[in-house]
């Protein structure tokens, strides 16, 4: 475990050695604030709710997660440090887990920095805001973000170009998010539609963000996370 934390600490520290981490956080928070308060105007909707914030998070993640994870493997491969890294006496899966934790750590920091948004919503609400769905919304956002990061890390492991890794990560995340949306499943036959709904990141997030913690959703996120981290290890081994 200490190896995992060492890798995670080193990678997380890298985000803040340069302004890159701050710029990622800046744009993430700016987009969240812009779309929540201005597009459309928060006050014109008349409801003091965070549902819209959690609705837009998966879309902001689509850019944030691949951007955060794109350099993790692609850069190592491009500058040739991957050989050095993988020859160290640390198991591959530990390195993968360490890199995942570093990226996920940045995402958690980003989420934590959105805390003023619920506080402002509570300030503008005519009656007390229900805290339960806010907390589960953040739990769901963290789980969804973790899966997005795992997918993006996998994409990064497949190429040595950060741009390609970013685009591939974005496409994969987008695919797994939209396949269960009602407008999409409607075009498929029933059995396939049901399967796609169960496979989709969006459907499971909708349940948890409204305030219902369901073991099926938690198991789904754990499964997706495990699958993509394993694929990540596989991709690293294959390309090494």
């Amino acid at each position, binding site marked *: 475990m200490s190896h995992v934390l060492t890798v995670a600490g080193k990678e997380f520290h890298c985000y803040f050695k340069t302004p890159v981490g701050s710029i990622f956080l800046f744009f993430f928070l700016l987009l969240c604030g812009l779309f929540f308060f201005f597009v459309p105007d*928060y006050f014109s909707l008349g409801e003091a709710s965070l549902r819209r914030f959690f609705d837009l998070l998966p879309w902001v993640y689509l850019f944030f997660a691949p951007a955060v994870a794109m350099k993790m493997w692609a850069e190592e491969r491009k500058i040739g440090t991957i050989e050095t890294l993988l020859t160290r006496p640390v198991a591959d899966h530990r390195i993968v887990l360490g890199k995942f934790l570093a990226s996920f750590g940045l995402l958690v920091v980003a989420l934590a920095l959105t805390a003023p948004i619920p506080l402002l919503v509570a300030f503008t609400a005519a009656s007390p805001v229900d805290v339960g769905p806010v907390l589960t919304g953040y739990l769901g956002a963290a789980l969804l973000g973790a899966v997005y990061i795992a997918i993006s890390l996998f994409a990064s492991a497949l190429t040595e170009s950060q741009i390609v890794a970013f685009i591939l990560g974005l496409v994969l995340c987008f695919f797994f998010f939209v396949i269960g949306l009602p407008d999409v499943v409607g075009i498929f036959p029933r059995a396939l539609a049901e399967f796609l709904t169960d496979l989709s990141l969006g459907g499971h997030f909708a349940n948890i963000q409204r305030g219902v913690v369901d073991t099926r959703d938690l198991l789904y996120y754990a499964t997706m996370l495990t699958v993509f981290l394993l694929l990540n290890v596989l991709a690293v081994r294959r390309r090494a």
Partner: protein
Amino acid sequence: MAASIPKRRRAAFAFTVLLVVANLFVLNWIARDHFARLDVTSTKAFTLHPATIDLLEGLDDLVTVRAFVSERAFRDQPQYATWPRMLRDLLEEFVAAGRGQVRLEVKDPTDDPDVAREARTAGVREVQLQGRDDQSAVVFKAYAGLVLSYGGRPDEVLPFVFPVEQLEYGLALSMSRLVRKRTVTIGFNSLREAPKGLALRYAGAAGMDENDIDRNWRLIRQALERQFDIEKVPMDREVPAHVDLLVVHNVSGMDEKAQFYLDQYLMSGGKLLVLADGTQENAQLKALTARNNVPDALFAHYGFEIARNIVFDRQAYQPDPRLPPRYWFPKLLSRYFDPESSLLNGIDEFHLMLPSSIRLNPPEGVEAVVLAKTTPSAWSQEGFFDVRRDMTPPENLDEYGQFDMVGLLEGEFTSYFANRALPEGVETSSRGPTREEFEKAGFEVEDADDGADEERDDEPDEPSPSGGGGTGGGTQIAPMFVQARSPATKIVVIGNTRFLAEGAPQQFPGNLLFLWALVDRLTTGSSLTDIRNRSLAPPSIRADLTPGARAAVRYGGMLGVPALVLLLGLGSVVWRRARRGA
């Protein structure tokens, strides 16, 4: 070296990954039917309401729920795709809470003519819905009905149960109706002669005519009939004992005899919901003037008064948010409801239309509570009121204030007729209990003869209910039939009828819900309406936020933290460089 990882090891690892993935898929598959859910919403919006659970736990015989649902038809339509799952989830919650007394049969009539026939025979019809196919709108047909069977009683049918948000209420209601042992009856002091004031038409509301008012009353009646028996109660005879609540919404027809029967109904423990406007329409002038036929003395005896005014509020009904309100109909908001009383629990808001304020002055033994007030930005007008004129709120701030609009009086009331001569024509023969029976039940029975004399001696200036100076023209009733004191009971008073008669239930669903919740809680003390009232809606935005505060929230929310993060990031880089340089 990683590059030297043997191919066999890589293949073995790939195979392990494949096995893990397969196992996880199987695990997810199994978890579809074996799962646990935790609803963390404060209202338990996605959990069965305690009232539903109480109802289900109280079942003493098997209730069979047959669900006829065209699952495929719904799943083929993107916007309805989640309905069948939500429906099934909810029905399964009912089965689980029913502890073996609820059996569920889900049938899809789509491809099975026998099931379709069974559905139609039971009263569930295929309903036409609008869906979407690629870019164009399509119409599709689907079944989504429930049939509840219990013992030998006639089935309860919910022909179409969507939206699912209202299903728990509908299902609980049907189940309670199916298994109930006694019917709750709501009496209206008149239904056919429902008030037909047309204040709104005079005020220029388009399309408002007598037909609209008839339709409104019909909708109100239909809505209440889903839960209660509704009965017209003519006030020229005693109110039947089985009436649990009397809704007095037509005070203009209340002569002394009607007042006597109303009084004695209250004295027998009956509950009253009094709706009365302090103003009346003048058809010739197309204006409102002070109402002159309110039984003020009777109402004052019970502890309330209907003011002869019209109350307006800056917090008003606003059909078009871009325009200022024209009529300033007060919008009563939950934050101005009495927090101690449960009667208005779950009601967010309702509108009163050209209402009058009330004043509560409870007699001894009776407690009074103002259930709902206007906001502090309300004002009133008395005397002649031309409803066709556009209203402008007063400029003088002293004219604004809060007005009491809905009140509750609770306790043991004394009879208005205990010490008075009785109205002419009061029928006494049909009254059931004898004096002995009343006394045995703990009620106080007074001698009307003596009382009438005393009252004349003590209060010579107060007009008698007969209007003729005490006994003039009045017929003496046998003393034993006047019940002088009520057991503990309740009166709810609202200074408005127009909010029901002229406020279309479709346009103001909050008004109907308000009436429904009041009636339900006054009669059964039941919390079934709480299920319906459970709000999935988030809180609204505070109305008192200034434009400056709004701008601060918007810009602060968007730029505050990002700017801080950027500054810290840049500061950190500058600091590093400076340190490196040093």
